[in-house]
Every structure is written in C-alpha cells, then in structure tokens.
C-alpha cells in the first residue's frame, strides 16, 4: 500500500505541475553514472523538497568521455535554442565555455559563498572578466600511490624526492622479481603515458615538481632547463622502473597494474583510492598516497588539478532558479556528503572538519597534494586549449616512445623536441591573445602558415574576399 500511495503522490505532483504555469523544469546535464547518479538524484530531490515541489528537475546524462562532452556542449550551445539550464563543467573548460555561461555574482548574496575558502588554484579559475561564472563542485588532483606493505618489507621510508622514489622503486622491483612468478611483470612505477589529456596532466606535475612550468608570466617556458631535466628524468625512469607498454596506458590500465599487486608506486587520480581499498582488491589496506614528490634541486611537491564545477547556461530561461540549484548542489552540506565517496570538496575548511576526517581519513591525505596542486594553462589558451594540450601530450609521448625504441636517441634530442613544442605553443598562444572576444573567433591552426602576402591572399584580395 505504501508504494501505491507514494506513486500516487508522484503522479499527483506531476499532474499539478503540468497545469501549473508557475512550475518550472530545470534541466541539469551531468556525467553521472551508477553510484554518482544516485547521489545526484538524492540531492536534486532534496532541493525540490526545500522549494515545496514548486520546481522540477530533469537530469540529462552526458557521455563518459570528457572530450565528447565538450564537443556536445559546443554544438548545443551554438544552436542557441539549448534548453539545458545547468551544466557540469570541467575546471579546464572555463576558458572555452565562459562566453556561454551566465555570470553568477548577481545571484549570490553577500558572503553566501566564501570564495576565499576555495583552494587558491580553484579560486583562480572560476572567474571570467571579473565575474564568477562557475561554482566548484569537486576537485581532483594527481597523487602518488605507494604500497605500504612493500616499503615496510624492505625497510624503506616513504620517498620525499623523485630520485629517492626511483631508487626505492628499482630496489624493490629487483627484489620482487626474484620471485619467478613476478619475474617479468613486476614494475617499480605505474605511470600513464598514453597520448591523451591525462598525459598533459601527469607531465605537467612532473615538470612542476622539478620547478618548471608550461607558461610562466605569459611566456612559454616548456623548454627551460628545469623542464628538460624533468623530461630526462622521466625518460630514464622508463628505462628502469616503468613498463614500456605504459606509452599506451591510461590511468585505468595503470590501476590494473597496481591493483593486481605488480607495482610499488603509481601516479593516479583520487578515484582509484576507494577501488584499491575495496575488500576484494588484492592491495586493500596496503596503500598510501602522497603528493608527486620533489624533483631536482629547485623542486617542490606537486599534483595536477582536475575537477568539476556547475554553471548556468546563458540561454537558460530561468537563470535565478538554475543558480539556486547550482548553489545548493555545490553547498558545504552537499560536499560533505559527497566527500565520503571520494569526491573531494574544493573548500579548504572541510579538510579541518574533525567529524569528516574521522570517517574519511583520505581527506587528510589529499589535503597536501591539493594545496600543492598546479592547474593546466587552459585559461590562457582559451578555445585553443585542446590544441595546445594535444601538442604537449603528442610531444611527450613521442619523446618517450623514441627514447625506448630508437637506438640513436640522445638526451640532447629532448631539448630539440621541447624547443619545437615551445614554438608551436607560442604560436597558439599568440593567436589566442589576439582574440580577446572569443565568440566566433577563427580557430587557430598551428600547422597553417599564414602569409598575408601569399599567392592565395592576393587572389582573394583580387576577388574582394580578403578582409
């Protein structure tokens, strides 16, 4: 009987809503599947309850692959008739999507959202032209996982620097390989180097940990001495402690290696934590996580920042209601609930909340990596970020592949590759800065030499087509 009465209420509400002109439907697009979808549904129901069933929410599910979501957003938003109100936006996309997002300041009462509480890297990303355009939902940060049991077994401390890490990894790798079963498949370090966005992240944190950067003070410095040193270190690690196949491994394959007990260290995202600690996992309870270690003499601990935010579409017909939903979904309370499921809150104060920490010590482990985290230069590249990122991960993947496979690869070739990469990035950056008004800006093509005095230009000028 209970279920019937429940159903009846739902139908009644839907029926009333159908005729009630005041009832608005807010559409929210998110990538939720499985457990996360349940969390979102629960939150959405709670929000509807606080508004006395005045508004309805419809969840639109996005594709699993992030780059496909972005392409879908761009297509939808350019149609201008887009009827999704709330969008789940990757923190790296804000530069690309900002023109389509509704500024949120006008919906935020004074002090309603304490921007100062967000991690500095996050805080630096959420504005566009001085206005807040997204509210951060949860953050991600690259970290270094390690096997506590193996370090203990061989009496090694948790390494603080890359050099120490590689030594430890090599030592344990050699020791473990004495076991004939592990002879050919035990590795010191799992590192995702497949030519995808993830490699841009993992490479960024390696150069950052060596004191290098992709862009510094508006200038491309990816070929600086620090970056060359970091790349050399990475290439040499591939020759000693990383499996060769890693050039085609994404985070998931690397997790497969680590979770089956065949690696001492692993670079991965926080999501792996709860999977590694599932009771059926071989390494459950034997895993620790720390920031990406310090590299070289001028280095610092690091970790690439990822993460998601919620935003209101510029084409939403009910921006104030949509903004209210966004505020609710990204509120302290919601982030507290979600933190229990490895969705790390972007608010620093939650990492000092004794109650939360008691139930979820993982939060305390991640505070360090997050504070040291470094953001991808997506804002500077704006709409051309994907192009810049592709150049980066292609070059790094090529350097690693070449160094493993080609006998005549020398260390000085690294500098050459990085110089070429810097030139390409400079070109992209130049074009990006020439187009401050992003909308309808021409895409930049690095491979396209644009000679204004060229033959084609003259023909076009003759025909009156050139601007």
């Amino acid at each position, binding site marked *: 009987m209970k279920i019937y009465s429940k159903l009846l209420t739902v139908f009644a509400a839907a029926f009333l809503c159908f005729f009630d002109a005041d009832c608005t439907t807010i559409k929210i697009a998110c990538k939720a599947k499985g457990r996360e979808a349940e969390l979102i549904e629960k939150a959405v129901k709670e929000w509807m309850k606080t508004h006395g069933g005045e508004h309805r929410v419809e969840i639109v599910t996005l594709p699993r692959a992030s780059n496909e979501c972005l392409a879908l957003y761009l297509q939808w938003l350019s149609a201008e008739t887009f009827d999704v109100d709330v969008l789940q936006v990757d923190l790296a996309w804000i530069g690309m999507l900002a023109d389509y997002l509704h500024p949120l300041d006008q919906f935020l009462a004074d002090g309603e959202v304490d921007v100062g509480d967000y991690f500095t890297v996050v805080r630096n990303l959420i504005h566009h032209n001085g206005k807040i355009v997204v509210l951060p939902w949860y953050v991600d940060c690259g970290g270094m996982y390690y096997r506590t049991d193996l370090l203990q077994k061989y009496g090694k401390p948790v390494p603080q620097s890359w050099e120490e890490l590689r030594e430890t990894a090599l030592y344990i790798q050699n020791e473990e390989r004495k076991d004939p079963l592990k002879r050919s498949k035990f590795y010191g370090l799992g590192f995702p180097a497949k030519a995808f966005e993830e490699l841009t992240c993992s490479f960024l944190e390696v150069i950052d940990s060596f004191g290098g950067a992709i862009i510094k003070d508006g200038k491309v410095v990816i070929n600086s001495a620090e970056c060359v040193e970091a790349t050399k270190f990475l290439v040499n690690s591939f020759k000693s402690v990383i499996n060769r196949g890693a050039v085609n491994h994404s985070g998931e394959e690397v997790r497969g290696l680590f979770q089956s007990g065949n690696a001492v260290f692993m670079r991965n995202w926080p999501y792996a934590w709860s999977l590694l600690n599932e009771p059926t996992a071989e390494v459950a309870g034997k895993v620790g996580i720390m920031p990406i270690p310090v590299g070289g003499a001028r280095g610092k601990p690091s970790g690439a920042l990822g993460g998601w935010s919620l935003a209101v579409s510029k084409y939403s017909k009910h921006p104030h209601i949509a903004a209210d939903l966004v505020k609710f979904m990204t509120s302290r309370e919601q982030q507290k609930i979600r933190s229990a499921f490895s969705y790390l809150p972007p608010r620093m104060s939650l990492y000092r909340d004794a109650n939360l920490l008691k139930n979820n010590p993982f939060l305390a482990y991640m505070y360090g990596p997050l504070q040291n985290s470094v953001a991808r230069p997506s804002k500077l590249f704006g709409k051309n970020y994907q192009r810049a990122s592709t150049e980066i991960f292609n070059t790094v993947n*090529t350097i690693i592949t070449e160094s493993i496979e080609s006998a005549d690869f020398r260390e000085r070739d690294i500098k050459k590759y990085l110089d070429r990469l810097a030139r390409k990035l400079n070109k992209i950056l130049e074009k990006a800065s020439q187009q401050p008004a992003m909308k309808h800006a021409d*895409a930049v093509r690095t491979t396209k030499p644009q000679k204004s005095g060229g033959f084609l230009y003259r023909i*076009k000028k003759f025909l009156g087509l050139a601007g």
Partner: protein
Amino acid sequence: MQINFTPLGRKVKKTNFSHWAFLAPCLVVLVLSAGWPLLRTIYFSFTDATLDNLKETNFIGADNFISLVRDQDWWQAVLNTFVIAFVSVPMETVLGMVIALILHRNFRGRGLMRAIVLIPWTIPTIVSARMWAWMLNDVYGIVNELLLRASVIDSPIPWIASSSLSIVSIILVDVWKTTPYMALLLLAGLQSLPQDCFEAADVDGIPFGKSFARIILPLMKPTIIVAVIFRTLDAIRIFDLVYILSSGNSANATMSVYARKHLVDYTDVGFGSAAATALLFFIAFLSVFYVSFNRKKLYDVG
C-alpha cells in the same frame, strides 16, 4: 488481350511515373540521410566553420585543403591508412577463400560451423577492439601471459604500445574481425557457380590444386574482385580499431582518426570537413580506378 487497346505511349508514361512514385520515399530518405550531410561536409570544407559557430561562416576557398596537404601529420595518417588497408585486405582475401572452400564442402555440422565463423564479424567493433586491448596489454594481457608460460618470449611484448608493433596488432585484429565477412561473400560466390564443372572435374580425377587454379579461381574472379573492392573501401575508412588500440599519438592515426581529431577535439569543423572530404576523394578515386580497371575482366568471364 485488352491491353492492346491502350495506346502504347501513354501506358509507358504511366509506368514510368508509377515507378518514380514508388521510388520517391526511398530517394527522399537517401537524399536526407546521405546526400545532405555529404554536401554539407563538402560545403564546410571550404569555410572556417567551428563547432560552436556553424552559421556565420566565411568562405575561405581552398585554404583548408592547402594547409591539409602541407600538414605532415595528414600524410602520416594517409600512409598508415594505406598500409593497414593494403596489408590486411589481401590477407583477409586469402584466409577468407580458404574458409569459404572448407565451408563449401559437405560435412556434418556445416550449418553450425557457418554460423560460428561469423561471430568475430558480428561483435561490434568497439567491443572487440576493447577486448583485444585487454588481451594485448603488456602486463596483464593473456597473449603475453601465454607466450611467457610457453617460454616463447622471456619479457612481455608491448603489442599495442610500441609504434612499430601497434600497426601490426591493428592489422591482425582487423584480419581476425573481417575475414568472416570475406568468407561469407566468397562462399556466396562459390555456391552460385555451376556445380557440373566440379562434378566433371571430380569424375575426371583432377587433383584439387589444379581444379582450384583452372576452374574455381577463373569462375570466382568477378566475386573476388567485388569483394576486394568492398573491403578495400571499407578498410580505408578504418576508425574504431585504431581509436581504441593505438596510443593516441598523431603518428599512429589514420585518415578518419585525423579528421575526427580536428573536427571534434579541436572543434575546427572547416578543417576537419576538408580532411573528411579528402578521404572521400581517396575512396571515390579508388573505386573509379578499380571499376574501370577491372571492367573488361569482370565481363570477360560472364
């Protein structure tokens, strides 16, 4: 014979009209579903359209095509595509012929066997590509595990990670996947051949090798040519296998992977469409070449 009373001309006109009327729905669907997107892609290839701006585009002439032919990555993609197509199709043809000849024989459980052989082809490519990516994984893939246990190799081989091996792996998986399709086409051809030739050859006691070379192959030529054309055109469009199995580096891309990258990842619809149009050009050129080259031979036999 009432029909004779109707003036012949009018009757023909009527039939003409009615057959167009019957064809119309099909033609409309074809134009809408194939013709329109095709023309739109060709149109976009001459503009600077981006994914978030498909309306206010500027006509930029052949600029996209000029930068396409200047792009080293594109020519690498063209080379990769042709290597895959021209290595895998002959392998599939030979293997497909062998399987077709076996399945053409009369043996117990032939129907079941014919169904089983088709399985690799019926699995969606994206699924089988993922499956192979797992099996070919260097650390926990079953292929390396078996080879290691049999002591064929002493350290794992990075099947899909090494730049030289990954193209071999892609070709092998493609052969595994499409040989059944080839076998199906060739088997259909074999079954439509006049059976009396085979019987005569059997009666005369001609060895199989000779009857294959002298009877089956010449009679099968038209079928083989059609099957090879189909497969080659199909292989040039190869996308999913490469997308899943390769490391994502531009050096391993094929033409359609290249086009997708520019169109979707870089949101550069104009340039991506130019790449897609160039791919279409390659396919059109090859089919015209094939058909005109083989026309004489095709009709020689028939």
